[in-house]
């Protein structure tokens, strides 16, 4: 008995040890980044020991924001991510409603197309999408970002919502129909309100996906006025003498909204990842 209890304690200690090491390893580099962003003249840093010489300041943040490119990138990223999220949710929830609640010719084909696009890697589409955006005169435009982000999100988000909509009891909808409510009203005042948790998960995915997106934005945007934050940050470090203090200040500015969304909506976040993962 005593033996098992002490073994139980040893296991507990081992669990704490492993989790503590993993946590430190996970956030250590990011904490280091924040510290460097708080140092003036980060290029004279010769390693961790130098970090604690001299004072910490917010000068890099003020400078990188005032120089303009990062502020413009931040604004562009907010606009693109918000519009993308709204349109993704609207179009995907409408599609999911049609697929979950109606039988119609072509339904299986649409479901099949969605499944196929879930498996096609984004990079395979990069070249034809670029040519398409060029032909639609959407290069160098935020609309070009939004349109392709929404299209890229639709398969996964429709799939996610479809699973949730199917679980809504049909009796609720039947009762509304008896009262004379049409499909559009049932969608607006029944399906959407009861699906709030699933919509929140979908919104988080759509928002963070476009907030962090780099490859497509890098490919179609050249005009500095249209750049999003990830592209702006990558360019900060592209020059020969990178000012890492500035680069990391901009990086922290980009990371903070993500961390807030993650910490506030952790439950929806985790549920979404797991249900998304286990369903596919």
């Amino acid at each position, binding site marked *: 008995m005593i033996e098992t209890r002490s073994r139980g304690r040893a296991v507990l200690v081992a*669990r*704490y040890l*492993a*989790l503590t090491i*993993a946590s430190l390893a*996970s956030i250590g*580099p990011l904490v280091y*980044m924040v510290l460097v962003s708080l140092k003036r003249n980060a*290029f004279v840093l*010769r*390693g*961790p020991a*130098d970090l604690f010489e001299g004072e910490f300041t917010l000068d890099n943040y003020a400078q990188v924001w005032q120089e303009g490119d990062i502020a413009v990138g931040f604004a562009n990223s907010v606009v693109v991510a918000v519009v993308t999220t709204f349109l993704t949710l609207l179009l995907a929830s409408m*599609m999911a*409603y*049609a697929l979950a*609640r*109606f*039988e*119609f010719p072509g339904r299986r084909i649409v479901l099949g197309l*969605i499944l*196929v*696009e879930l498996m*096609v*890697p*984004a*990079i*395979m*589409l*990069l*070249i034809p999408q*670029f040519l*398409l955006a*060029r032909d639609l005169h959407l290069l160098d435009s935020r609309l070009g970002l939004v*349109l392709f982000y929404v*299209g890229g999100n*639709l398969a996964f988000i*429709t799939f996610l919502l479809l699973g949730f909509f*199917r679980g809504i*009891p049909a009796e609720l*909808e039947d009762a509304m*129909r008896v009262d004379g*409510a*049409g*499909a*559009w009203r049932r*969608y607006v005042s029944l399906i959407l309100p009861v699906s709030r948790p699933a919509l929140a998960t979908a919104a988080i995915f759509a928002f963070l996906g476009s907030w962090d997106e*780099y*490859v497509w934005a890098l490919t179609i945007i050249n005009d500095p006025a249209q750049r999003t934050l990830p592209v702006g940050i990558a360019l900060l470090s592209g020059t020969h003498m*990178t000012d890492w203090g500035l680069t*990391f200040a901009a*990086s922290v500015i*980009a*990371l903070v909204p*993500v961390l807030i969304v*993650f910490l506030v909506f*952790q439950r929806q976040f985790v549920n979404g990842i*797991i249900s998304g*993962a*286990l369903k596919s």
Partner: protein
Amino acid sequence: MPRSTLAATRRSGAPTAGPGLNLPGRRSISPAYAFLLPGLAVFTLVMIVPTVQAFAISLTEWSVAPGRPSLFVGAQNYLTAVGDPVFWIALQNSGVYVVATVIPQMLLGLALAVALDRPLRGRAGFRALIYIPVISSWVVVSLLFRYLFGTDGGAVNALLAEPVDWFGGRWSAMFVIVLLGLWKGVGWAMLIFLAALQSVPAELREAAAVDGAGRLRRFWVVTIPAIRRTIVFVSILLVIGGFNVFISVKLMTDGGPSDLTQVPLTYLYRQAFNFLDFGYGSAIAFVLTVLVFALSVTQLRFTRRDDEESAA
């Protein structure tokens, strides 16, 4: 939505059956299409049409000038790839990257999930901290690792007795690229494994404990088989993700020194968007897609066979 469509959808009430089951009914046709159409139009334009084009472009010598016809060259771009040493280096590097990131991610992810499986003070905090690299932007963490391993004040070299020019050689650079992939991916594997572990019925483990099985044996005989599907699923997604490595390589080495750290995506990106060789770029993309798809199918086969064996 325009009023006319709204009125049209309202006219016909749709009969619905139980969840997931739909009664066929002619009256239900029109509202469904109205709901489907806007999304499907966008989806078709920006996803389905490019999917169809992707292969077609790879069979051409693509003309960059709009309006000028592209030349059909058949398999020429694929033959170019076979004879291109950089393409083989890129494939080799991504193979190394996949092996070196996927296996440790699975082992560490599973170990951490086991450590978090039972109630523990601070569990939610640990889980959140370990997950933070996953939600961090690839751009940001790629620049961060470039700095940490850099020769101009990088923290890693400051801690080493002898500074290393990490990005100066193929394998030392690949080491950093792998390390970043591993660091950023462990939390995801952990989270999925944790969800799977928590759905293993407690009775199963208890039954094994009553039978006198020790912890390790219970884990091996009860837990692992119970989450085998998840293990395969995680391995498939990690392999797919590994072959899609791009941003970290682009921002840390951009394929250098002298193309030694190219991976297929950085190489196809250079061919397409620096050299404007869209045909060749598409061929590389298509080869990679087929390769990854074949690997996924093979991995799935493994579970199927296991299923049949355990059923027999």
